């Protein structure tokens, strides 16, 4: 009974109008190669027709640097000013509005772990939409601090990353740990404050068996929200600090932007 409720609005999930909407959305997001995979993802996502229609999709034209929706498709002002060499690019699926805010709150702070699967599916949709042409050898996540994890009781980022890797087939490996328990980023105002608090927040894991015979050329870093990009940039810098990944290109993918 409960499995038939939409995860977002709690109303009945399956209806006659759901299938056409899923097909329509999959067609809008995919090309002919990715359509089957995308449709399968949308079909099992447990969002009802109303919520699917209301997804605030970004694009198709986005800033090539940070993935912000740009009607003209040119690089946005922030990227021209602040881009660094560590992070190659970011892409996001949805824009971060009230719906996203309430979903994130339900998942992270209320602890509704069922949403983890939904978020992994959304990330995979974003992957098929933006990163289909790139071969990633490795996917990794933005880790949570030990204290925060104990507080919350579950590691949402790792859960999502594991599911994501199951869906897309890219091997998942946790490369980093968080050594600084930063305040919540959303409580800190300003790009500079965020950037400062993220300095030296991550370090490589101590035991790092190289998961591949050869060094990976391209790593995908996944996170739930990209706001100013200070978190993923700090992670990318930490990854580049490891000798075996110094030459690796790093792209990031987030659900909300």
């Amino acid at each position, binding site marked *: 009974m*409960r499995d038939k409720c939409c995860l977002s609005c709690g109303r009945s999930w399956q209806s006659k109008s759901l299938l056409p909407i899923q097909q329509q959305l999959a067609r809008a997001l995919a090309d002919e190669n990715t359509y089957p995979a995308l449709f399968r993802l949308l079909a099992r996502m447990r969002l009802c027709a109303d919520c699917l229609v209301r997804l605030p999709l970004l694009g198709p034209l986005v800033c090539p640097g940070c993935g912000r929706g740009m009607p003209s498709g040119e690089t946005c002002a922030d990227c021209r000013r602040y881009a660094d060499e560590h992070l190659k690019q970011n892409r996001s699926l949805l824009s971060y509005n009230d719906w996203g805010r309430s979903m994130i709150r339900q998942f992270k702070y209320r602890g*509704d*772990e069922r949403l983890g699967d939904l978020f992994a599916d959304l990330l995979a949709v974003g992957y098929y939409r933006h990163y289909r042409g790139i071969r990633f050898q490795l996917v990794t996540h933005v880790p949570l601090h030990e204290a925060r994890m104990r507080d919350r*009781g579950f590691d949402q980022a790792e859960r999502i990353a594991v599911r994501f890797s199951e869906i897309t087939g890219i091997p998942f490996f946790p490369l980093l740990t968080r050594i600084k328990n930063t305040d919540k980023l959303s409580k800190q105002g300003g790009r500079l404050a965020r950037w400062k608090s993220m300095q030296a927040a991550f370090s490589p894991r101590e035991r790092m068996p190289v998961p591949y015979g050869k060094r990976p050329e391209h790593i995908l870093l996944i996170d739930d929200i990209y706001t100013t990009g200070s978190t993923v940039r700090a992670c990318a810098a930490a990854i580049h600090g490891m000798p075996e990944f110094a030459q690796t290109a790093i792209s990031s993918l987030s659900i909300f932007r």
Partner: protein
Amino acid sequence: MREYILYLKEENKTTQAYITPCFAVDKLFWEQQDGQRLHIIGRSPSLAIAFMLREKMNEHAAEGPIDEAALRRFRKLAESCVRETNLLYGRETKEPKTWFTFSADGGYGTPASKEIDMIRSQAEKLSAMIAGRALLWDEVARLGEQRGEVTVGLEEPLQWLVLQKRAAWQPAVSLRLRKSWLRHRLQAACERCGEQAAILFSFCHRCRQGCAYCPTCINMGRSKCCTPYICVSGEVRSGDKVRRSGVLAWKGALTPLQGQAAERARAFAASERPGGSFLLWAVCGAGKTELLFPAIAHTLEAGKQVLIATPRKDVVLELVPRLQQAFPTVRVLSVHGASTEKWEDGDVIVATTHQVMRYYQKFPLVVVDEADAFPFHGNRMLYRAVQRAAAPGGKQLYLTATPPPVLRKRLAGRTCGGPILSSSTHVLLPQRFHGHPLPVPVRIKVPRLFDKIRHGRPVLPLLNPIRESLRRGKRLFLFVPRIADVPVVHAYLRRQLPACADRIEGVHAADPDREAKVLRFREHRLDLLVTTTILERGVTIPDSDVIVLGADNPVFDQASLVQIAGRVGRSAASPDGLVLFLLEKKTRAAIAAIREIKRMNRLAQSLRRTSDAG
């Protein structure tokens, strides 16, 4: 990470198992009494496992004196139990691994950090703070923070209370092994909301064990295996158990019939017999809230507290000012999710169902308003919460116009000729306060009703009554079954009735302008409101008519149709009006609703006749 120690207490040939997070406190406690021997069985970081093992131990505890061999047997039993749980948990999560750990060794944990007197005084403070509440561990800490009390090291005073049997605790989600010849099963149940089927199994980084959590009541804070759920029975407050008098300042008068019903309710609240439930069944527009006043006043005058539980926040917000006006000298609290008075203590507490779950054995009188308005699957949760919030021997008073079948069977008795007027457990008030009969719905069958509307063809059985009502200057509710129908019907009516197109509006639960639109309708700036069932109760608009479009849809059950019909003729100035059910095929619910309304009218008539004759 907290660890829980499981030990056996041997005393005069009886043995009992106990659990403690701080063994030193238990030792202090038992040392006060002579002739006790304590044997530690082992320790586990998972609270749910510890309680499961305690149950197991207690089953086997009567098997003779505790010696080394017996202790070994107990430890073996515990280990096999944990192994079995690991296996079953792995099956549920589809990931076999060691989910739970249990170490069968002695070790006495850390010594008590405080003196015994310190623990005692802290325990007193804690008990005063959470008396009558059922809270998760985190909530206790938050409450302590708010009151400015000590919040660290709460385990020791709490354990002291538990040993004194003044508090009870358990894992918020409990695990039980159910063994059967076919297959063993792990049964998880949320102790807070009673959910069993939907419990989700996962891993917790706080206890580093398998940890199931309940998604049903997740919005009140996560209830999971490793969080202690603490229930402290409410003591009657000693300070103000003084008899008050004259708390009721309400100056209105009840009609003779109302007076009789109110007196029955008061007698129930005042009776010496402990416990019991009473159903106050009054038709829509009978003045239900006023009927409660004598019963509430009686309880308050005895120096006791009253809880009024209702399924919806709107009702809480509407009820509180009315009650405060009627009882100006007492403290009336509104308790709902967003309220700031949630953690305070008053004399009359008006709470939503979810907040009722946070009370435990506190109230001598619990009133449940509109018991049937709760969504279907939550009903069991409501009854459970109400039962727990009532003090031992407390009374439950249900107040409704359309009692759900469960209540009707249990309290109103079962008679073949329809309901009777009163019994020892219920009273029925079939007449409205103004004494006029309820408007009886008219049922009209319109084949392919929604197809016609969708294609914009005129539906005369719908349009003619609307024109007629509007001509008479009445306001009109138009109920539709689904949210998706609201814009369709709205657009259709605007096209069909161009004369008043801008005085028609549509509203549904997800509508951001919902309140504004209802207000405009109330102020008669709108003539016609297309709505879903959200407005079926609680809205009183004088001089209005009602049409239900598609009354055969399962959304409209009997209770809901009776409530909708009850919107009409609420004021003494215009006691009748139009209630029209338009349906594609006839349904049991529509027929039963009409039959019920007619039956009420008949009962009211016979009552009037007897009172006239008398």
